[in-house]
């Protein structure tokens, strides 16, 4: 890397940050200080805008750099991520988006509280949503730290540590100032940048191979050192039974977790109607599907242009495959084209991380202020603070969760980003999705069922992670010196998702109180017709 690279990428990055802060200031200028404004941005975004914002919230750096890198290293096995991340959106579109828009206000707990006893479900759902958000935030923080080390030539732990702190602090300021309105706009800007950058790279890869996909795949297979096995399953997940089960576990978590992510559910509150929510998901599916198709081209393109060994030499996890590909496609190291393209890709990757951090920070502040503080505060006898008071709490909560995520991000710097994201998806699929689906579709569902479902998914998911080889008992573990590993899989989804569903059913059938028929009638009519929607 030459000095020119290191100057251009930070300059572009700074320009993005300044633009984002200007948007926040502009959006914050007209804020009215209501919860409606802070959590939902006034609910008046169009389906197209919200579709871009959903894509912006969903496509994290793990998608942009991680998946292409995995494909460049493992060929076909990396492609399975692309498929799982897209198919997950059908669950959101068919079962969740419209109904949540109709009977929710801002958070998962709002949907549950529409028909169940408010206090217990708010505490349970608020706590599990907060857990998912913090895990997701830590993943993004760790990703930002690694990116700085890899892309901008910042070496050593100090540069990474400072990046985590600065990224976290910037986004806390951003969310605090602008709320959902500013956060939505940063997602839109980022989605446009990310799609634009990906399209340019994909076109350049296809031009390099004269539009012949077969030639691209054959070259990739040749240069991977694996031959045709590179295009078939098994390079990463085919070694033994444990790794195969781990793959199913991850696949399950990916496809079911999306519908339980708090920052995705919050996006449906920013549009006026269920129809707008549906149309925004359709836009998002078009963008996300197109993006993942292009990551496949970029991944195989990196293998074909650079060779898998060159990718592995730069980063064992493959995270630098796309920036290196950009450098080569632009004309190679030292050329003006290569320098510019490399800097653009680095800046887009940073913009991606910043935007996702903003979205998740906002969702976690809603969990804390709207669900946990509002409920727990009432018991301790404090007077209701009203919407303005709640927004003040939400701003403080954004700062608080940001600080916690910065702290954990500094501690977890050596954990794999894709693993952390997979874990957040697994917890969302185990703790949030069962209770959401039961509440939307099961007439006999009770409050006890809801609490058991959340606890019965959350605790096993977290416990199995603590007992997994990720934490202890393997050379790459968090505590490599200790060994208290009891569970063989890295991802808990295969066990904890069924447990979440089972606990919800068990809690409901053993419930001493009958289901609230009137509450269910109201929730069902509202969810399907949009009557009385906020």
């Amino acid at each position: 890397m030459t000095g020119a690279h290191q100057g251009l990428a930070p300059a572009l990055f700074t320009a993005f940050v300044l633009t984002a802060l200007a948007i926040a200031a502009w959006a914050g200028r007209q804020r009215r200080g209501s919860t409606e404004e802070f959590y939902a941005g006034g609910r008046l975004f169009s389906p197209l805008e919200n579709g871009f914002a959903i894509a912006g919230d969903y496509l994290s750096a793990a998608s942009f750099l991680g998946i292409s890198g995995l494909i460049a290293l493992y060929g076909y096995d990396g492609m399975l991520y692309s498929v799982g991340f897209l198919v997950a959106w059908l669950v959101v579109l068919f079962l969740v988006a419209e109904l949540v828009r109709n009977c929710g206000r801002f958070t998962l707990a709002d949907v549950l509280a529409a028909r169940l006893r408010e206090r217990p479900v708010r505490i349970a759902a608020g706590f599990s949503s907060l857990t998912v958000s913090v895990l997701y935030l830590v993943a993004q923080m760790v990703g930002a730290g690694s990116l700085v080390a890899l892309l901008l030539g910042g070496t050593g732990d100090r540069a990474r540590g400072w990046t985590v702190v600065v990224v976290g602090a910037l986004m806390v300021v951003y969310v605090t100032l602008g709320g959902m309105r500013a956060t939505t706009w940063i997602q839109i800007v980022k989605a446009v940048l990310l799609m634009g950058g990906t399209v340019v790279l994909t076109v350049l890869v296809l031009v390099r191979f004269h539009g012949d996909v077969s030639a691209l795949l054959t070259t990739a297979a040749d240069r991977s050192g694996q031959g045709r096995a590179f295009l078939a399953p098994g390079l990463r997940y085919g070694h033994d039974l444990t790794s195969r089960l781990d793959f199913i576990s991850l696949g399950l978590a990916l496809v079911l977790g999306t519908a339980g992510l708090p920052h995705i559910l919050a996006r449906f509150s920013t549009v006026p109607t269920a129809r707008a929510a549906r149309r925004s998901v359709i836009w998002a599916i078009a963008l996300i599907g197109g993006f993942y198709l292009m990551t496949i081209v970029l991944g195989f393109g990196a293998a074909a242009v650079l060779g898998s060994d060159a990718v592995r030499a730069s980063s064992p996890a493959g995270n630098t495959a796309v920036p290196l590909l950009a450098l080569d496609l632009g004309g190679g190291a030292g050329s003006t084209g290569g320098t510019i393209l490399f800097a653009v890709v680095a800046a887009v990757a940073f913009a991606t991380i910043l935007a996702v951090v903003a979205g998740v920070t906002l969702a976690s502040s809603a969990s804390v202020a709207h669900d946990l503080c509002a409920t727990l505060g009432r018991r301790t006898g404090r007077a209701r603070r009203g919407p303005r008071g709640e927004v003040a709490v939400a701003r403080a909560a954004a700062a608080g969760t940001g600080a916690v995520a910065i702290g954990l991000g500094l501690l977890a710097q050596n954990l794999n980003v894709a693993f952390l994201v997979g874990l957040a998806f697994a917890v969302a699929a185990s703790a949030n999705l069962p209770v959401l689906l039961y509440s939307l579709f099961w007439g006999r569902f009770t409050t006890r069922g809801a609490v058991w479902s959340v606890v019965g998914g959350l605790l096993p998911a977290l416990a199995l992670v603590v007992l997994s080889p990720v934490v202890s008992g393997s050379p790459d573990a968090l505590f490599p010196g200790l060994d208290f590993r009891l569970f063989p899989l890295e991802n808990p989804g295969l066990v904890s998702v069924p447990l979440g569903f089972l606990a919800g059913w068990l809690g409901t059938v053993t419930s001493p109180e009958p289901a609230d028929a009137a509450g269910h009638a109201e929730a069902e009519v509202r969810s399907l017709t949009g009557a009385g929607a906020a």
Partner: protein
Amino acid sequence: MRDSDGRVAVTVQRTAGGEPARDAAGIYREVQRSPAFREVRRRYRRFAFPVTVAFLGWYLAYVLAAIAAPETMARPVAGALNVAMVAGLAQFATAFLLTWAYARHARLHRDPAARELRWAVAVKTLQGDARSQRRAITAGPARDARAVRGPGELR
């Protein structure tokens, strides 16, 4: 209440023995029991549930095939493409296709009826007294109302 000229009534009937609906909760229960609402719910579920089971099954089959039958998945189809790559691209194709099918189904078979029910609930909530419960509530253009009655018909 609108004039019934050119419009068809959607009647939300009270079930026998039901208590008079004075509050919002009563109205929601009444709407929930009405044939019009059950038709909307039936249409939604008859599309969403089987299709969800189908695409989750297809996705799981795709994942399981990669680890259960890797030799079959590695078989070449055309050029450098093998069964696994084709199946992966087919997952993308079905995702886009099902998105389109769901949007079309919702637009043609659910949106008009749901809009009428929303209107019915709003009117009832505003009236808020039991006397008018038996009166027909009219709303929406005639073609929308027809969509409530004729299940499965396409335009």
